[in-house]
């Protein structure tokens, strides 16, 4: 099992609903976020192009954060989801420094926090909160090892990319372009 997410940049309107839904679902304190929206502009008026992306932890197969964690708090969980065990984390921030996607933050309670692909929901057969809420239905989540999962199907059909592939982290967050 290998969980992955695909996000359709052609449909995302950058409304940040994914961000609020994640905050209320996961009790992320106000002022912090596990996911966020990026807009990339290109061109000069009126020849313009824009890509909008909802970003979060890439749940890399080859995760520098897991590798550099001195206590083993950062680890691979079910389906390759990268997780942090709160009570093992000493808040040293080595993982934050090593993450090329800037996807982690220090929770006010002292441990490092990040996207979990809403594993607690996934275990119950639900979609992650961001996927479930998205008004444009631009996010797809599922098991890449299952060729019939929604995410596998959409990645077969559509052109896609990952972010900073040159970092060699093998991210599991795909962007449909």
């Amino acid at each position, binding site marked *: 099992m290998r969980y992955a997410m695909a996000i359709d940049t052609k449909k995302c309107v950058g*409304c940040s609903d994914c961000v609020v839904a994640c905050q209320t679902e996961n009790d992320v304190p106000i002022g912090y976020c596990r996911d966020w929206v990026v807009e990339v502009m290109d061109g000069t008026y009126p020849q*313009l192009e824009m890509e909008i992306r909802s970003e979060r932890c890439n749940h890399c197969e080859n995760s520098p954060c897991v590798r550099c964690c001195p206590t083993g708090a950062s680890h691979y969980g079910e389906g390759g989801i990268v997780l942090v065990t709160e009570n093992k984390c000493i808040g040293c921030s080595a993982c934050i420094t090593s993450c090329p996607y800037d996807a982690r933050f220090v929770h006010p309670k002292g441990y490092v926090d990040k996207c979990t692909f809403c594993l607690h929901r996934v275990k119950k057969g639900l979609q992650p909160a961001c996927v479930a809420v998205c008004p444009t*239905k631009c996010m797809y989540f599922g098991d890449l090892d299952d060729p019939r999962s929604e995410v596998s199907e959409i990645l077969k059909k559509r052109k896609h990319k990952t972010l900073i592939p040159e970092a060699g982290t093998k991210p599991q967050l795909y962007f449909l372009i």
Partner: protein
Amino acid sequence: MNSRRQFLKISSLSAAGLIFGGGLLDAFAENLVKKNPSHFKGPFDFVRTPTYCEVCFWKCAGWVYKDENGRIKKIIGNNDDPNCNGRFCPRGTGGVGMYNDEDRLKTPLIRTEERGEQTFREASWDEAFDYIAAKLQKVKKEHGPESLALFSHGSGGKYFGKVLKGLGSNNIAAPSYAQCRGPREVAFLATYGQGINSPENTDIRDTKCLVLIGSHLGENMHNGQVQEMSDAIDKGATIITVDPRFSTVASKSKFWLPIKPSTDMALLLTWMNVIINEELYDKKYVEKYCYGFDQLKEHVQQYTPEWAYGVTTLKPQQIRETARAMADAAPAVIVHPGRHVTWYGDDTQRLRAVAILNALLGSWGRRGGYYNPEKASVPHFKLPDFPKPSKNWRDAMGGKYELADLALASGVCDASIPSPEMSCAIKAWIVNGTNLINTLPNQANTLKAIQELDLIAVVDTMPMEITGYADVVLPECTYLERYDSLRVSQGREPSIALRMPAVDPKYNTKPAYWMAREIAKRLDLLDYFPFENLEDEIDWELQQVGTSLEEMQRIGVKRIKREYDDLYFEKNEDIEFDTNTGKIELYSTALAEEGFEPIPVFVQHPEPQEGFYRLIYGRAPMHTFSRTANNPNLTDLMDENTLWVNPKVAKEWDLKNDQYVYLENQDGIISDFSIKVRVTERIRFDSVYMVHGFGHADKRMKRCFGKGISDTQLISNVMIDPIMGGTGMRGNFVTFRFDNKKEA
């Protein structure tokens, strides 16, 4: 008398006041929600309670979830709701912040000094109601009941409306009409004999071509529409966006037409020229259903693409190409009617042009165009007749705006300023859930009107600017803490939705229904409030349509089957439109009768002087109007607005990204606060852009005070629509200032 019996039965079951009577009644009312026996009744644990959202007007139905401590945790969409299909927008998801905001109004307040100064003392509910009732009675006696007015946006308006009507006034206005969608309604009524209403009857789900003119879907999160647009993108629909700004949806469009602001009418008429002259229009449809085609054809001959180039700065080839793209998709094409359409004062005419263009393409009544909506019908409990007002706001306007089909908020405001022409000077306002200071353009005018009043009572959840001018402030609990009237929606399938309290009201706040009834009690108007509790009235209504409060508490939303399968016209179906001619009027006989142009004409609008830029404003997906800027969750996403400036302009003024500037408008009005510059190619060189709803001036809103600029403050030139009185707000120009010192 079946209905009366029904009512009695319910009363005896749940209205404890009737049993205990007299002295206990008041005590009971003080704890309305808490001790109400029907609160949380039912065999459910109420880990989740149904609601419909109150953050914007789309009213998506959802579920409020509580944690193990009974505290509100999250709000998510109801899967059965056609307005949201189980998915809330960021504002709806962030509705929890409205409940958690510690800056909320907490207890009734009575003003101690002059209006606009924040000097209040805390008061009891009884004192506040006595004060209001006495003032209302005094104004009624001295000036007549027609001098009472209500401004409303949101659920509470209905209840206070009953008080007003009971007293003998129908001056009930909502800024959502004259400041927003009114011109569109009048234009479509004049053309098709039918308005658009809300949610819009646009069949975006199945469209092949969606044309958006200054309508930035996605930045305005009109939930159902945005969802359908996303479906349409999936199905490969062509999107054509006309906007001087590279909006989000422009970035998703096959064609983006970066039009010169204020020239949209020229483009619309030119599109008609191309579609008619290239014979791309739906001939059978036009022949069967439309009136005045020949006049229209002759009229648009002057509007050639080459002419339009000089006016709109859009290339003739681009205009032809997009006209053909629309025709290729027809009739599955939507030239979108927009929503906030009060721009240049000729808005009814511009929306008429939109309506006519749709008719030429044969999209009204067709799949992928405009469907025929059906609204659920829920009977109301029969109330005694309201007294007939002898005059209203319209009389005060000297017979103008006969075609407006709802009261104008700006008109009622104007009618509060004494003048020789106005025969209906308004002396008392009740304001429910609308921050008029930041909603009505021309703030100076609003403030002048307010100073003329004998009473201004404001009902709100937050200390908005308008509450600073109130004589009495009534703190309303949020929608998560109260019942409200049923949501009765139009759509492909009509639906009803229930809102019930998820938790008890925080602080000393109360539902608007209870407040209105308490005021009614003091004015001897209880006949109009036969139900002690709103939930009893809702239960009565629900039983008339074969369900009950208990069932709705469980399911939240009920879809109601359409009576007829008439979403679209049948092939060759004979249709009688509700216009003078019974046809779709390309040439409007109603407008001609009133002395207006029967076919829209292009009129050149003023342009900015050297050094000034057109002020364009719009929406961000995470904020609504000017009412969410202090919401902790939504402020976290966006805490101030920025000023979009083209790099060429920035260079000329030596402006850098993130630098703060003040703005001064053409009338010398300087912004109270400063705004952060955002240098971006996404805006034309002749305009600047900001998101509406920031620059709050009330210090009690700690998160948003002084953050960004209020566009409303800079809108002093209001171009009034002569047909329906809409307030055109896009005719204002601003220049940059590096301080806000007023010249001596």
